[in-house]
């Protein structure tokens, strides 16, 4: 679980190696924020440059990922937000570019999910990705976004509800083979 690289018994990594190790996660977060591969890679490059220039401000023993995500997010909101999401860039849109994972039973199509995710308000999308996929805690997400933990929780909750609505997942029978569960729920209702 340690994302700070300080696993006892493992060789100490250089600052450069620690940054390299986080590049895949930086890209995933950047794409999730900006909605475009091209913007995401520019954003990651800016983040790496800033991180290198401000290496002194990284506190040893804390999460390198959380620190880098904070830099990336601040860079996005100060420099990229306008040019990113307001310009329609179909070729650069990650939903059209990335591979599509094989469908698991009861799973949502990845392209459909990405369309729904990209239509969420940014403040909801970022916390959902931070706590639901990037491996960071609610506390770290709160710190990255500069809000209270309770705010993160309510944004995550709203994001999930909105996604379920966009994806038509209002009925348990839509997402799995276990249709009997619905009958149980409905049978318990009173009128």
């Amino acid at each position, binding site marked *: 679980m340690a994302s700070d690289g300080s696993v006892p018994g493992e060789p100490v990594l250089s600052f450069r190696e620690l940054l*390299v190790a986080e590049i895949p996660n930086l890209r995933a977060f950047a*794409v999730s924020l900006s909605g475009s591969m091209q913007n995401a890679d520019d954003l990651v490059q800016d983040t*790496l440059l800033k991180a290198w220039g401000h290496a002194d401000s990284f506190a040893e023993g804390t999460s390198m990922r959380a620190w880098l995500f904070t830099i990336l997010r601040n860079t996005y909101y100060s420099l990229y937000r306008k040019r990113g999401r307001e310009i329609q860039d179909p070729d650069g849109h990650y939903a059209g570019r990335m591979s599509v994972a094989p469908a698991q039973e009861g799973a949502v199509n990845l392209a459909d999910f990405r369309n729904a995710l990209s239509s969420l308000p940014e403040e909801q999308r970022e916390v959902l990705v931070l706590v639901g*996929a990037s491996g960071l805690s609610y506390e770290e997400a709160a710190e990255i976004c500069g809000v209270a933990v309770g705010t993160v*929780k309510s944004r995550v909750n*709203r994001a*999930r509800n909105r*996604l379920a609505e966009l994806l038509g997942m*209002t009925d*348990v029978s839509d997402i799995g083979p276990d249709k009997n569960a619905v009958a149980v729920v409905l049978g318990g209702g009173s009128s």
Partner: protein
Amino acid sequence: MTHPNEMPVKVEPEDLAHAVEATLDPKIQEALGRSLKAHYDDLVKAPVPDRFLVLLAELEAKEQNHGK
């Protein structure tokens, strides 16, 4: 007979702003969680462009040269 509109999962947006406890069906939450991980992991698995490795190698080399 139960009318579909009476399903207990129906929640109005204004309620959600206050009700952190207004949670989805656990199965829907799990399905969303899996999709979110699939989205993210697919991106994490993408090959890292050389430009980043080159950039960091150059920054490190520059720093080491200054140190001498």
